[in-house]
């Protein structure tokens, strides 16, 4: 009986991300005795939770053949708004009134901020037919500037135990951020697999004109997708802020690149219409494990950037060659 690599090719392609993750874990585990420890496992999961939240939103955007470069800045502004309102409230001297925010109120405000910014991205893209790259690049600088204005360039700290529980707490022996990101993944997977919305997202990415001719309200779906991406970036912002007990004006810088990397490594096509949320989760885990491994192995931060870039490049090349052969 002759068994060739060709026999296993479909399975290898299907599970390429998982295989890559497995090889990565084994390699780092062999080189560092701290990698396969429970504490490090939770640490990695806690760290990737933020990227998972952002990357899930980014996947929706990329599936529609779009891109969202603003997620890092949206994350920063959402976290800063929540922290600022929680810490300082709103003062209305003219009416001698102080409006204070509860933790719940601050979280709602943060989520609203992200969603509104995302909605604005969607509106600019659909209303003015702007390329998503340009519209979200503009939002990247607008949101970062607004964050600087809101925080006056200083971190907002001292947010209290109730708020920091969100990013540092544990529930049933599992870190709360892992529950939150896991819940988001579950909801969005169901949304993509079980609803018309999910099918429309894939249809728009596959062929926008065909989807339009089929009666899909393209603009509405796109606006919804960008709003969700903004909202999910806000969730990431709340997790980062609560974990650090501080809203940093420069939080989330280059997070958009990590999330795009997770999406691409997870097998989602940058030209849209092909990919999955679970693939992106695998991509985020690979990025997280890679980051963690490089730190454990004492690799210089400059080399870390180089290695991450090469991994992304390889992922895209493999993806391209596999889709050509499909």
């Amino acid at each position, binding site marked *: 009986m002759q068994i060739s690599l060709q026999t296993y090719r479909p399975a290898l392609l299907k599970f390429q991300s998982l295989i890559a993750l497995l090889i990565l874990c084994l390699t780092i585990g062999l080189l560092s005795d701290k990698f396969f420890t429970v504490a490090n496992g939770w640490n990695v999961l806690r760290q990737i939770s933020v990227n998972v939240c952002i990357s899930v939103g980014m996947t929706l955007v990329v599936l529609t053949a779009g891109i969202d470069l603003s997620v890092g800045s949206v994350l920063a502004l959402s976290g800063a708004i929540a922290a600022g309102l929680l810490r300082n409230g709103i003062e209305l001297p003219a009416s001698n009134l102080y*409006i204070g925010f509860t933790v719940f109120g601050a979280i709602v405000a943060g989520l609203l901020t992200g969603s509104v910014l995302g909605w604005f991205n969607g509106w600019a893209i659909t209303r003015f037919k702007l390329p998503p790259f340009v519209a979200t690049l503009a939002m990247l600088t607008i949101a970062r500037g607004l964050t600087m204005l809101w925080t006056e360039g200083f971190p907002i700290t001292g947010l209290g135990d109730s708020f920091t529980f969100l990013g540092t707490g544990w529930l049933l022996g599992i870190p709360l951020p892992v529950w939150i990101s896991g819940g988001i993944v579950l909801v969005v997977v169901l949304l993509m697999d079980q609803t018309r919305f999910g099918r429309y997202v894939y249809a728009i990415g596959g062929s926008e004109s065909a989807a339009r001719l089929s009666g899909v309200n393209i603009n509405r779906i796109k606006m919804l997708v960008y709003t969700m991406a903004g909202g999910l970036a806000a969730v990431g912002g709340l997790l980062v802020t609560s974990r650090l007990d501080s809203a940093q004006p420069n939080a989330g810088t280059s997070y958009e690149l990590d999330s795009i990397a997770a999406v691409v490594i997870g097998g989602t096509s940058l030209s849209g219409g092909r990919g999955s949320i679970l693939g992106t989760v695998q991509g985020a885990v690979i990025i997280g494990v890679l980051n963690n491994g490089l730190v454990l192995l004492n690799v210089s931060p400059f080399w870390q950037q180089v290695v991450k870039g090469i991994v992304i490049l390889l992922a895209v090349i493999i993806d391209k060659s596999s889709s050509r052969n499909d």
Partner: protein
Amino acid sequence: MNKNGLKYGVLVLLLAVVAYNSVYFRKLDEKKASAATTKFDAAAYADAFWKTKLLPDSGKAIELNMLIQELKTDKDKAFEAHSHALSIGNLRYFLVRGTGKITAIGDHDVTVLLANGPEVTIATEYVFGNAARDASGQIRLTDFDNTMDLNNVSSEINKIIRNRVVAPFKASAKTGQEVSFIGAIELNREHLHTDAIEVIPIHI
């Protein structure tokens, strides 16, 4: 009630519940008055820390010559036994003492040749950083509501050093004079250099 009316009714109710649980209202002047009484006074905290903790604790300072020897023999053990730090990282702080002769007086520091030891410099111009605050290990991160307060304590302690320690020392220091000092130093655990130690003086 038609279906749309019911839908909007539920929506309004939901928004009302969210709003009710999100915000609370107070009179602005009352809020400002209560904030003024609870505001952290970094200068007062630093002064109390200086008098009741740092100066009394300076008796526990390790002889700088001895520390350098211990660092050469077993770096990790020496760091474990004598250093403190509030933040995570390789920078650690030591409370040290020493006696030596002044060999040079510069614009920014005074160089002292330790008896049976190397030359060290005592900072007289740029007294910054967290060395004096952290070296004793008496301040805990959890004592503060936010990092801004913690950083303000550092700058207030450094201000005390500039006014109460450095100023009289600078005025009286002469080359060849013998001095005994207690101070704080910063060393990097990963990249250790003991040949250019700068002391932030606490007592001279």
